[in-house]
C-alpha cells in the first residue's frame, strides 16, 4: 500500500537504522553495486562487489562509457559509425579505422580461418537481405542470393597494418554482430580492472557473460545456461573467464522458412539448427565468436575444431534433451540443481 508507510519520523528512523546496520556489515564485507545501460541493441549489465561502492559505481559508469564508445564504432545501424563508413567506402580502397575496429576485424578473420569460413563477418549484405525479408519483404530469389554470395568471403578482407582495412569486393559489408558484444565485454572488464574492481559480472544482453573474481564467500560466479530441453540444468562457474550462448531466432511462422539472424555464409540463407550452443572461454571475444561458429558447424565438426584449443568448453543442447559436450579445461555441469544458488 502506497499510503501505508507510517509517519515520516519512523521512516527516517528505519532508514538510519538500516544505514547504520548496513554500514557495520559492509565495513566487514563487500557491497553489491548493480547498473545497466542500453548499448549495441541490448542491455549491458554489471554487478560488482566492492568495499568501496562509490568507486565501483564510478568504474561501472566508465565501463559503460567504453561500451557506448565501441557501439559508436561498430554499429551497423548508425550510419555515422566507423563500421558503416568502411562498409560504404573500403571497396578496393584501404581505409583508416580506429584501433578497436582493426583489432576486432583481425580477430574475426582468425576465427574465419579456424572455422574454414563458417564464422564470417562479411555476411553483411546477406544479413541485410534477410532482415528485410523478416520485416515483410519478399523472399530472396536464387539469383539474388548468388549475386550476394559473390560479394562476401573473409579472404576478401585485407588488413593493411597498422590501421587500414580494404575490401577486395565491390559489394562487401561487414557485420560484427557475432563478435562485437564479446569485444565490448572484454573492454569493460579492462576498464573495471583499471579502477581496482576485482569481483564483477558483466553481461551483454544475457548472451555473453564474463565473471571477474567471484561473489563474496564463493569460489566463482555461477551462470545457468540456456536449456531448450528444460531438463539438463546446465551451469558453469566463471572466475576470470566468459560464457556465450547462441541460438537461431525462433521462427514465429514455421511455414515460412528459412528464418533467423544467423546466416550460413556458404549457402547464403539462415541456418536451421535445433541447438542452443554455449561456449566457455578465457575471453568474451572468444566465447562470443565461438558460440556462433559452433552453432553453424554443429557438434561433430565443432568438436573437431575445438580439439586444438586450450581452456574451452562447449555444449550443444536441443529441445529434445539431446546434448553434446566437449571440454579442454572448464567444466559445464549438467543437472546442476542443488549447489548453484548463492
Amino acid at each position, binding site marked *: *500500500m*502506497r*499510503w*501505508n*508507510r*507510517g*509517519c*515520516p*519520523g*519512523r*521512516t*527516517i528512523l528505519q*532508514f538510519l537504522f538500516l*544505514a547504520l546496520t*548496513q554500514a557495520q556489515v*559492509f565495513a566487514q564485507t563487500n*557491497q*553489491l*553495486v*548493480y547498473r*545497466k545501460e*542500453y548499448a549495441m*541493441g*541490448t*542491455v549491458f*549489465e554489471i*554487478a560488482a562487489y566492492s568495499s568501496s*561502492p*562509490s568507486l565501483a*559505481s564510478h568504474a561501472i559508469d566508465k565501463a559503460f562509457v567504453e561500451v*557506448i564508445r565501441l557501439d559508436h564504432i561498430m554499429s551497423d*545501424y548508425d550510419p555515422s559509425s566507423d563500421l558503416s563508413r568502411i562498409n560504404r567506402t573500403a571497396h578496393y580502397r584501404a581505409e583508416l579505422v580506429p584501433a578497436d575496429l582493426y583489432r576486432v576485424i583481425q580477430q574475426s578473420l582468425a576465427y574465419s580461418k579456424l572455422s574454414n569460413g563458417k564464422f564470417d563477418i562479411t555476411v553483411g549484405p546477406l544479413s541485410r537481405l534477410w532482415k528485410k525479408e523478416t520485416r*515483410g519483404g519478399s523472399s530472396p530469389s536464387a539469383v539474388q542470393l548468388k549475386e550476394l554470395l559473390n560479394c562476401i568471403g573473409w579472404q576478401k578482407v585485407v588488413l593493411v597494418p597498422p590501421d587500414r582495412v580494404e575490401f577486395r569486393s565491390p559489394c562487401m559489408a561487414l557485420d560484427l554482430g557475432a563478435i562485437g*558484444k564479446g569485444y565490448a565485454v572484454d573492454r569493460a572488464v579492462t576498464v573495471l580492472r583499471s579502477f581496482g574492481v576485482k569481483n564483477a*559480472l558483466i*553481461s*551483454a*544482453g*544475457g*548472451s555473453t*557473460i564474463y565473471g571477474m573474481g567471484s*561473489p563474496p564467500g564463493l569460489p566463482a*560466479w*555461477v*551462470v*545457468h*545456461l*540456456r536449456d531448450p530441453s528444460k531438463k539438463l540444468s546446465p551451469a558453469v562457474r566463471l572466475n576470470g573467464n566468459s*560464457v*556465450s*550462448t*547462441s*541460438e537461431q*531466432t525462433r521462427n*514465429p*511462422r514455421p511455414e515460412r522458412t528459412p528464418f533467423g539472424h544467423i546466416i550460413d555464409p556458404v549457402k547464403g540463407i539462415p541456418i536451421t539448427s535445433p541447438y*542452443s550452443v*554455449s561456449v566457455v572461454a578465457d575471453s568474451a571475444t572468444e566465447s562470443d565468436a565461438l558460440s556462433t561458429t559452433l552453432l553453424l558447424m554443429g557438434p561433430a565438426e565443432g568438436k573437431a575444431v575445438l580439439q586444438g584449443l586450450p581452456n574451452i568448453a562447449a555444449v550443444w543442447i536441443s529441445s529434445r534433451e539431446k546434448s553434446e559436450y566437449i571440454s579442454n579445461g572448464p567444466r559445464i555441469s549438467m543437472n546442476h540443481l542443488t549447489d548453484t*544458488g*548463492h
Partner: protein
Amino acid sequence: MRSQRLIVLSSLLLIAAAPAWGRVFLEWTEPAIPPPTRIGVRELVVSWTPGNVRLMTTAKSLGYSVFAGVRAADAATAANAAASSGLAGIIVESESGTPGSNSVRELLERLRRSYPRLAILELSSQGKQPQIRGNLVVSRDGVLVVSSPTEQPWIDSNVALARFVSALQPNKPPLFSFSWDLIDPLERQVGPRAADYALAVAEAGAMRADLILPVHPNLQKALADGNQAAWREWERVKTYLQFYSAGKLPAVRPCADIAVVADDYGEAYEAMNLMARHNILFTVFPPDEVTPQRMARLQMAVVFSRPDEQGLRTLQAFADQGGTVVLVQVQGHFPWETLPSIISDSGRTYTVGRGRVVELAEPIADPETFAEMVRNLMSSRGSLVRLWNALTILAFAFREPHTDRMELELVNYAEQAQSVQVRVKGLFSEVRYETPEHGNYPAIRPEHNDGYTEFVLPDLQIGGRVYLTSEAENTR
C-alpha cells in the same frame, strides 16, 4: 538578477499552465519543502498521517495545492478533514491497488457528492518505474544469471495500466504512481537520476496521464537545503515538467489500431503489455461498450470479456467489413458459428464477410507469440504508426477531432539520444518536431510512400513530440 527573474517568471508560467491532462503531482515526505515557484510543480501529495499535518500546513502556506494520499478505509475521514482544512483534495488508493474496484469507485462517488468542492481522485498504484529491464536477477542473496541468445531490451511501461484505467473513466485522465526500483544499497541511498525522473514525466505526459511522482527523500532534503548539485539535477527534470505541461493540441484524442475488450485487468494485462511493447496502438473498453462508434477506424478487436448480444452483432458487422476479431477463451455461442471455419492447434478461424473471427481455445500462454500473431493479423492493412531502429522507443498517436492534424508522442526508455525512423498512415505535408532538450527543430521533410508518410527524427533523448499536418489542412 535578470536571469533569476526569468527563472521565477518561467516557473510561474509553468505552474500557471496547469493542463487538463498530463498533470504531475509530487509526492513529498520530508518536513521541509522549497516553494512551488522553484520546484515547478504546484500539486503536492502528502500521505495522510498525523505526523504530516505540519508539512501539509507549510506546503499550503507556500502556495501548493495539497492533496492527502489516503487508503480507501480512511477516505471518508480524510475527506471530511481535508474539506475543513482547505486541502485541494484527496487521492484514494484502493486496498488491492487494482484498477476497477467497484467498491472504491462507489465510495468515491459518494464522497464527491458530499464534498463537491474537494477534488477526489482515484489512484492506480500498480504502476512500475518506467525503465529498460535487465536480465540479471539481483536480490539480497546474490545475482541469478541465466545465459540466453541476445535478449532484446524489455521495456517496463505503464501503458497497459493507463489504457485500462482510461477505459474505466473515459472523461478523466488516468492517475497512477509507482515505486522506484532501486536495486543496490548505494542506489537506494542516492536515489534515482534526473533522467529517471524525466522518463517518468515523459511517459505519463506522452500518454496524457496524471502521475504521482515520488521524490526520493534524500533529494527532497537536498532541494530543501539548497544543495546546488541537487538543484542542477532538478532543473533537468523541470525541463520535462514544462514540456509536458505545454501540449499544443489539447483537444486531441488517442488513436488506436486495436480495441481490447476487457473488464478484468489481470486477465488482459499480459496481452496489453506485449502490444504496448510492440508499439501496437490499442484502446480499451468494457464489453458493454462494443458499439459501431467505438469500433470505427479500428482494424482489430481482441476480446477477453464476452459482450452482450448487441455487442456480438457489432463485432460480426465489424468483421464483415474487413476487421479481425480475436476472442481469447471467451465461452458461449456466437452468431458466426454457422459460417465456414478452419481449425488449427490454437483454435478456430471463421471467415466472416471480408474479415475473420479467430476463437482461441486456450488462454494466452506465450504473450510474445500472441503479440506477434496480432501483428501478423494486422499486417494486411498496415498499422497507423510504425517505428524502425527503435527497440527502446514507444509511440503514442493522437488526432485532433474533425481535422487531419495528428500528434505523435515518442518516449525513449533507453535515455540516450537516438535517431528514429517513423512511418505514419496517411499523407502529411508538414512534420514539426520538438523535444524538451532542444525545443523546436527545423521542419522535417517527409517522404510519401504508398499512402504513408515517412520521416526520420534526430536526437530522441527521452521524450519528443511530432505535429503532423496534411496538405488539405494546410490549405484550409
